[in-house]
């Protein structure tokens, strides 16, 4: 077992893990962050995307021990928690936009899509349709929902830039 000190969605965790534990399994099975999904498990589909020290990574292809001392942000920490009983009030603009633009059908890819998009928008606050598609090439949606996913990302980008967005 190897000692692990890791900050997940703002909370510090100290755990002993087997070195072969994948970050996604640590997040789901030890920390309980089941919002992060395991999809293909072969670093193709991006469903397991989280932020490791601020950059999007596929947590099925990172050992938990590689994240020792690091900060991990998952989909569960994206919304603003300081709301009064309304679970949707604190939603991140991406979460809102995926809802309003119908950016999901089954929703399995959504946590990874949103985390990948969040990193993309940090680097490029006003991406073109092409740039969104290219930026999300590491995330697969098997409901063929890309049109609305791209729309959702651009809608969220507009809101994050402070532009008026019709709901």
């Amino acid at each position: 077992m190897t000692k692990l000190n890791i900050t997940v969605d703002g909370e510090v965790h100290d755990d002993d893990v087997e070195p072969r534990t994948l970050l996604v399994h640590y997040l789901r099975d030890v920390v309980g962050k089941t919002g992060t999904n395991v999809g293909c498990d072969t670093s193709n589909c991006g469903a397991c995307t989280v932020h490791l020290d601020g950059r999007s990574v596929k947590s099925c292809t990172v050992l938990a021990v590689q994240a020792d001392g690091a900060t991990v942000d998952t989909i569960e920490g994206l919304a603003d928690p300081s709301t009064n009983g309304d679970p949707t009030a604190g939603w991140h603009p991406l979460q809102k936009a995926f809802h309003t633009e119908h950016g999901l059908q089954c929703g399995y890819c959504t946590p990874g899509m949103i985390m990948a998009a969040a990193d993309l928008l940090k680097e490029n606050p006003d991406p073109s349709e092409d740039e969104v598609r290219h930026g999300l090439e590491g995330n697969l949606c098997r409901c063929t929902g890309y049109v609305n996913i791209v729309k959702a990302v651009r809608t969220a980008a507009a809101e994050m830039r402070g532009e008026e967005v019709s709901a």
Partner: protein
Amino acid sequence: MIPASFEYVRANSIEEAIGALQEHGDEAKLLAGGHSLLPLMKLRLAAPEVIVDLGRVDALRGVCETDDGRLAIGAMTSHQDVIDDDLVRQHCGVLADVTAHVGDAQVRHRGTIGGALAHGDAASDLPAALLALDGSVIAQGPNGRREIPASELFVDYLTTALNDDEVVVEVRVPKLDGDWGWRYEKFSRVAQAWAIVGALGIVKRSNGSIEDARVGLTNMGTVPVRAAAVEQALNGNGTDAIADAAQQAAEGTDAPGDLNATPEFRQHLARVLTRRALEAAAG
């Protein structure tokens, strides 16, 4: 899918990593970004008994200029950091452009230049680029450092000239200052996939003709290759020679056949992609 059990060693310096490699011999594997090794371990195609993690060795990150006028890129520099690096963009933009074709955004955030080269996969983008650039790696072992030119680094399928107790510490590439153009043409089955074939054309122009042409081919053999016949046919000629020269792109290659492409299709792709890459590079 979970890798087989292994002993985990976290190296805090290059010397510690070399010491661990000496201690454990060929039972040990170095872990850089893990984006080639971990998928193999999850599929149990690799089951090293000891993993030596280089993630804490900060001395292996970053880019600087060398005394002999080249760029030295730390082996643990992530693909994204190579793409974003000012020195790379200014002096060797072709490396940034090829690196932007590696995997996808998440892969580029974790994967490293040294790891990709040490893995020695002829189907990945950077080995052919290093070869076309006449670049090299600096390897450090128990007896010090040595420079391995790209032309000697890639020995066979997933096999490099690195010894079991050596660590790639730096990647060196020339500064392409002057009138250079380049284009990497990558033909993939789906976005983010490995190249079925890739062709990198690098051209130095001088008075309307091609002074120096380089062509690196991805996935046209067990190791990355240069299209030497194309290069020779172009040097000293005008850009109108490109179409004919590119017809020789598959000469001397040993294209693999698999589910996605027959060797003949790969040879066809090599000719077409080489022409496109060179035309764009010279344009």
